[in-house]
C-alpha cells in the first residue's frame, strides 16, 4: 500500500510539471493548429538558460526560471514572426510543411546547444536536491513537491490571464475561429506571435522546475516533445485545464507502469493511452466535459 501510494504521489507531482510544459504546447496547437515538434527543444533551451544562471552566477533554479521565461518568450516570438508566420502565406501541396519547419527549428536549437555545451550530461546540485519529506511511511522528494506547487500556480495565473484580460480573450477567440476573430478586429498575426511567446515561456518554466530532477543534455528535448504531445491530445487541443488533468493522468499512468510493469515499458503506456484517446476520444478530455 505504501508503494502504491508513493507511486501515485510521485506520478501526480511529476505530472503537474509535465502539464505546465504541455500547456505551452496546447496553447500553440490550439491557436495555430500546427504540430510544434520544436517544443521540447524550447524546454531544453530554457533548462540551459537556468543552468547557466546557476553555474555561472549561482542563481537558484527557482529564481533563474524568471530569467529563462522572458528569454524564451523573446525566442518564441522571433520564431513565430519570422519563420512560421511566413509559411501561412506560401502555397504548397501539403500543409504539413509547417510541421517540418518546426523539425528544422528543433535541429537548429538542439545542435546549437550541443555546439556550446557538448553532449555531456549535466545536473544542478542544490542544497535541497536530495531532500525528502515524509508523509506517514511515504517519502516525497522536496524539489518535486516545490516544482508541483509552482507549476500549479502558473497554471492558475495563465487561466486567469486567458479568461480575464483582453489579450487572453483575443487568444481564445483566435483559437476558436480565426476568421471570425479577425473580423472582430483581432490582430491575428500579433496574437499568434504572443501565443508562441507565452507557450515557449511556459515551456521554459516547466523545464526549470524539472532541472533539479533530471540530467540535462541537448537531446532531452525529444522526451518533452513526446510527453507534451500525449498530454495535449489527452486533454484536447487548446484546453489548458484539459492539459493540466492530462498531465496528471500521464504522470500517474507512467509511474504505475514503471512500478508494476517495468521501467522499459513505461513509455509504451503513455503511447498506448495516446493512441486510444486519438481513436476513441478524438476531442480529448475537453470533449467529455462539454458533452
Amino acid at each position, binding site marked *: 500500500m505504501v508503494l502504491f501510494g508513493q507511486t501515485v504521489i510521485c506520478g501526480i507531482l511529476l505530472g503537474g510539471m509535465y502539464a505546465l510544459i504541455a500547456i505551452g504546447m496546447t496553447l500553440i496547437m490550439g491557436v495555430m*493548429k*500546427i*504540430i510544434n*515538434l520544436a517544443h521540447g527543444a524550447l524546454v531544453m533551451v530554457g533548462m540551459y538558460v537556468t543552468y547557466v544562471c546557476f553555474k555561472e552566477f549561482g542563481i537558484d533554479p527557482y529564481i533563474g526560471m524568471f530569467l529563462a521565461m522572458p528569454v524564451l518568450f523573446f525566442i518564441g516570438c522571433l520564431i513565430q514572426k519570422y*519563420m512560421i508566420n*511566413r*509559411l501561412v502565406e*506560401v*502555397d*504548397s*501541396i*501539403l*500543409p*504539413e*510543411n509547417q*510541421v*517540418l*519547419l518546426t*523539425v*528544422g*527549428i*528543433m*535541429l*537548429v536549437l*538542439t*545542435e*546549437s546547444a*550541443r*555546439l556550446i555545451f557538448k553532449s555531456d550530461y549535466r545536473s544542478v546540485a542544490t542544497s535541497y536536491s536530495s531532500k525528502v519529506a515524509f508523509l506517514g511511511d511515504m517519502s516525497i522528494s522536496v524539489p518535486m513537491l516545490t516544482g508541483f506547487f509552482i507549476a500549479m500556480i502558473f497554471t492558475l495565473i495563465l487561466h486567469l490571464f486567458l479568461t480575464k484580460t483582453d489579450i487572453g480573450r483575443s487568444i481564445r477567440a483566435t483559437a476558436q475561429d480565426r476568421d471570425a476573430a479577425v473580423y472582430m478586429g483581432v490582430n491575428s498575426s500579433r496574437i499568434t506571435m504572443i501565443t508562441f511567446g507565452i507557450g515557449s515561456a511556459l515551456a521554459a518554466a516547466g523545464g526549470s522546475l524539472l532541472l533539479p530532477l533530471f540530467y540535462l543534455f541537448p537531446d532531452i528535448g*525529444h522526451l518533452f516533445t*513526446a510527453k507534451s*504531445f500525449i498530454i495535449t*491530445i489527452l486533454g484536447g487541443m487548446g484546453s489548458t485545464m484539459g492539459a493540466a488533468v492530462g498531465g496528471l493522468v500521464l504522470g500517474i499512468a507512467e509511474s504505475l507502469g514503471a512500478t508494476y510493469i*517495468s521501467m*522499459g*515499458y513505461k*513509455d*509504451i503506456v503513455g*503511447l*498506448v493511452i*495516446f*493512441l486510444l484517446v*486519438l*481513436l476513441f476520444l*478524438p476531442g480529448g478530455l475537453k470533449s467529455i466535459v462539454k458533452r
Partner: protein
Amino acid sequence: MKNKNIVFTLLFALFAVLLPLFVKAPYQMHILILIIIWSVIGTAWNLLGGYAGQVSFGHAAFFGLGAYAAGLLKFHYDISPWWGMLLGPVAASVISLPIGLICFRLRGPYFALAMLALGEIFRLLFTNLTSFTNGARGILIMPEITGKMFYYYLGLAMLALTLLTTYLIVHSKVGYYLVSIREDQDAATSLGIPTTRYKNYALLPSAFFTGLAGAFYMNYVAFIDPNIVFNLSNVSVMVILVVMLGGVATTWGPTVGAAMYIFLGELFRTTLGSANVLVFGILVCLIIMFLPNGVVGEINILMKQAAARKKTSLAGGA
C-alpha cells in the same frame, strides 16, 4: 511531353548504370548506395504522403520491420538474411493492414501523430523484447557479399522497381483517386470514392517498398539496433525531409531529395566538423521557407510558366 519524359528516364538509367565505371572508390560507392536506399524509402513515402496526402511520421516502423525480418532470420534460424528481401517487405505490408485500419480513421495532423506514436511503440517493443530481438544490443551479421559493386546494382534494380511501381499506380485510376482524396476528402467521398480503401491501396505498396529498403539495409550495413532502424528523427522525419527537399508528389522528387540529403550531409560532415547538423538544420529551414514545393516541384512550376509564356507570346505574334 511524354517522349521527353521517356528520353530523360532512359538517359538517367544509362547514367546510373555506367556511373561505377567512373566512381570506384569504396567511400564514393557507399554514398551512392545510401542515396539509393533513401530514394527508395522516399519514393515509397511519397506515394502515401505526397500523392494521397496522408503524411506519415512513422515510416521507421516499416523500415525497421524490414530490417529486423532479415536480421532475425539469421539470428534465430541461421537462414541467409537475403531471404529477408522477400520476408521484410511482406512483413511490413502485413503489419500495415491493421495500422491502416487504426490510423485511417484519423485525418491530417491526427493521422501524422498516430503514425508517430506507432513508430515509437515499435521502437520500444523491439528494445524491450530482448529474447526475441536481442534488445538494444542489436543484431550483427557477417555480410555474405563484400565489395560494393553488387550492392550498387542490386539497389539500383530495387529503386527501378519502386519508381516503376509507384509511377504505374500514380498514373492509373487509383492515382487520380488518391490525389482527389488529398485535395478534398469530403468531396471525394461525396463522389462515391471509398476513401479508406484507396488510402490502403497507397499504404500497402508504401510499406512494402519501405520494408524492402529496410531488408536491403540490413544486408548492406550488417548491423542494426532498434534505435537505428526505428529512429524517429533519423528515419521517420528524415524521409519526409528528403521528399520535401526534392518535391512532394513528383516522380523524381524523392530521388533528387535523397541525393541532396546524403550529399550535403556528407559534405557538411567532412568539412564542418561538429557544426554539421546545425548547418543542415539551418538549410532545412531555409528550403522549407523559400522552396515550399521542393527542387523538382519548383522546376516543374518554372517550366510550366515558361511554356505558358511561350504560348501567349506566340498567340500575340500571330
